[in-house]
């Protein structure tokens, strides 16, 4: 052995000795978790408390019952969760038969599960009695434990109460959704059905209007009543239809560049009769500079008109209503900056129409919003009702009479239409002192764009045309016919598909007004057949239908229709079409 080799060996021995000392030190100071011992049948690990503790804690603290059972079903160990469920301390459960916690009728299931568990594993649902004796649904998972720990079965007990609750809630939720869907469908159909009779009534009323000069005062009064109530009824039906469209997401906005002032004045005109009837004073404040929006004029007018109507309804007679339009800037932080030109209303401000310039201090990153505020001195809204005012069919319990009653959909419409425009509406109120509704809508930021006001063409009187009116509702057909005759046209009517075909061939009309929902041969089929007949190729066809969606218009175009009118079509729309036909023919 060389000198170097001897040195190496001594070094190695020294290291082993150091290791041995270190190991003893570590064990003495409690710095180890476990020992590995070689026994006759192989290696075995003896763990110290530090190593067992995490597992013990895991089992003890878990939110599921964990037990070990003897092969006969006696409890050898129970964790805190199961002990809590049955309302006994863990140590008292040792030696207790698990069957004590199971109702009699569930015993056979338990026996089967236990038997299968002994053989390997099993799972099943069962009920156990809790501390109060109530039956609790649980899910049991049995599994046989390794034999070296003595014959035993592990058992997990999962409380299904919460899960059952969620299942129940989900079930109810589904049922509610279904009921809601049905309600929406019903509303859509109802408003649709209610609309159909309105057209002939409206036409008949216009016919009576032609007799204006020869009416007795009573007839005139009666006609005026019918006219007003018909208008009211139409608005209600329209609202209802609107709600069903909005709730089913079938609203199409026809957005264009519009000025807010036009919207506001239009809405004021609409509500003026109601304001006058209730002797309210309206204080209107609109900025002198135009504010441009990209919006659906009709829908937005509806928003403002509904807010005004609401204010008028809930304010006692001779009350005061403020309608203020201004610009507010929203900073990126969410903070609002108000244009300083805006008038600050007080209760004693005089009734007037005022306009004010808009100046404001805001950061370049701020976004402009037009803000429409409608305030009244009315009954106000109870705090409990305030969060619900925009929900469908919500109405305050009024101390006023129900002469201005409605369906409770006006504010719901306001909210949904505002949101469709990317805006937001808020309500503020003090009971007994009035309410304020604030609508904020995004403004078109580019102020250099020039707006072209829509050109409204005046309608010259039309030349006499041959018109065929087809509608299975005899009243609708006849009232249209009478009105057209009154304007100097020749008119014939038909009430079903085949009759319409025959009349078209016999009569060779210039214009054919065709209801889509016809018996035997529907309007689309009639139109398609007519388009295939060379003798009738110049006929102008007008579809008359309850469906006004873009998709519906497309279908009628494909069927060969030139025009598409949505029921209840007013005579003016039809007159306008007849005028263009006359213009094309000459």
């Amino acid at each position, binding site marked *: 052995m060389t000198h170097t080799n001897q040195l190496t060996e001594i070094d190695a021995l020294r*290291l082993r000795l150091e290791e041995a000392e270190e*190991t003893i030190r570590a064990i003495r100071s409690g*710095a180890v978790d476990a020992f590995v011992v070689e026994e006759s049948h192989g290696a*075995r690990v003896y763990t110290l408390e530090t190593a067992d503790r995490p*597992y013990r804690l895991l089992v003890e603290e878990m939110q599921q019952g964990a037990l070990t059972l003897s092969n006969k079903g006696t409890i050898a160990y129970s964790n805190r969760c199961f002990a809590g469920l049955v309302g006994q301390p863990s140590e008292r459960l040792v030696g207790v038969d698990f069957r004590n916690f199971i109702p009699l009728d569930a015993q056979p299931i338990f026996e089967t599960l236990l038997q299968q568990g002994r053989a390997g594993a099993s799972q099943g649902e069962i009920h156990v009695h809790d501390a109060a004796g109530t039956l609790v649904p649980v899910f049991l998972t049995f599994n046989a434990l390794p034999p070296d720990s003595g014959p035993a079965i592990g058992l997990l007990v999962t409380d299904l109460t919460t899960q059952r609750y969620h299942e129940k809630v989900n079930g109810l939720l589904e049922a509610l959704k279904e009921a809601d869907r049905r309600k929406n469908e019903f509303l859509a159909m109802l408003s649709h059905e209610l609309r159909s009779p309105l057209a002939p009534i409206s036409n008949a009323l216009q016919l009576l209007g032609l007799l204006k000069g020869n009416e007795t005062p009573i007839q005139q009064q009666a006609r005026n009543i019918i006219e007003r109530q018909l208008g009211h009824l139409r608005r209600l039906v329209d609202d209802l239809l609107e709600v069903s469209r909005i709730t089913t997401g079938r609203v199409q906005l026809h957005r264009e560049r519009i000025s807010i002032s036009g919207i506001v004045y239009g809405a004021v005109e609409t509500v003026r009769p109601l304001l006058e009837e209730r002797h309210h004073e309206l204080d209107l404040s609109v900025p002198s500079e135009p504010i441009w929006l990209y919006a659906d004029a009709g829908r937005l007018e509806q928003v403002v008109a509904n807010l005004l109507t609401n204010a008028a309804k809930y304010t006692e007679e001779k009350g005061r209503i403020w309608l203020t339009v201004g610009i507010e800037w929203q900073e990126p932080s969410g903070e609002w900056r108000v244009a300083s030109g805006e008038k600050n209303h007080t209760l004693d401000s005089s009734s007037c129409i005022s306009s004010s310039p808009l100046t404001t201090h805001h950061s370049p990153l701020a976004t402009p919003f037009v803000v429409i505020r409608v305030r009244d001195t009315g009954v106000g809204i109870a705090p409990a009702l305030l969060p619900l005012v925009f929900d469908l069919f919500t109405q305050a319990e009024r101390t006023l009479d129900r002469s201005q009653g409605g369906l409770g959909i006006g504010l719901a419409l306001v909210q949904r239409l505002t949101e469709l425009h990317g805006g937001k509406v808020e309500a503020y109120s003090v009971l007994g002192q009035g309410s304020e509704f604030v609508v904020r809508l995004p403004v078109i930021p580019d102020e250099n764009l020039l707006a072209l006001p829509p050109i409204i063409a005046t309608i010259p009187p039309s030349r006499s045309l041959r018109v065929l009116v087809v509608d299975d509702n005899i009243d609708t057909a006849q009232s249209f016919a009478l009105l057209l005759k009154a304007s100097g046209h020749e008119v014939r009517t038909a009430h079903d598909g085949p009759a319409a075909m025959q009349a078209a061939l016999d009569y060779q009309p210039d214009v054919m007004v065709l209801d889509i929902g016809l018996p035997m041969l529907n309007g689309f089929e009639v139109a398609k057949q007519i388009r295939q007949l060379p003798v009738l190729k110049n006929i102008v066809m007008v579809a008359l239908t309850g469906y006004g969606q873009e998709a519906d218009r497309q279908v009628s175009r494909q069927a060969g229709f030139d025009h598409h009118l949505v029921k209840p079509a007013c005579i003016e729309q039809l007159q306008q079409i007849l005028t263009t036909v006359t213009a094309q023919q000459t």
Partner: protein
Amino acid sequence: MTDELNPTDSSTTAAFEKLMAGTAADDRYVLRLYITGMTPRSTEAFATIKALCEQRLQGRYELEVIDIYQHPQLAIDEQIIAVPTLVKLLPAPLRRLVGDLSNVERVLLGLDLRRKS
């Protein structure tokens, strides 16, 4: 001192300096950490050693963690008596560190990454 001081070495000076520096920059380390399941001592030991290796031996070490619950026989074969134990298989000489492995100084010494004063 050790067989690294071989007189046949072409550069005895270089070998001597390498020895004095404690470890060569290209020595490959093979380490095995024996633990028991999920005790705080095991997790701490692993975290310390992992961090140390990343710091001092990046790219030239293998660290294998063995749970003696799962593989008791491996521990017997490696002559492990108690855990946690860190075994340095390479570079020679083989060394075992038992007990508190969260002490950085102690681990550095045990891995020959620092000369004894």
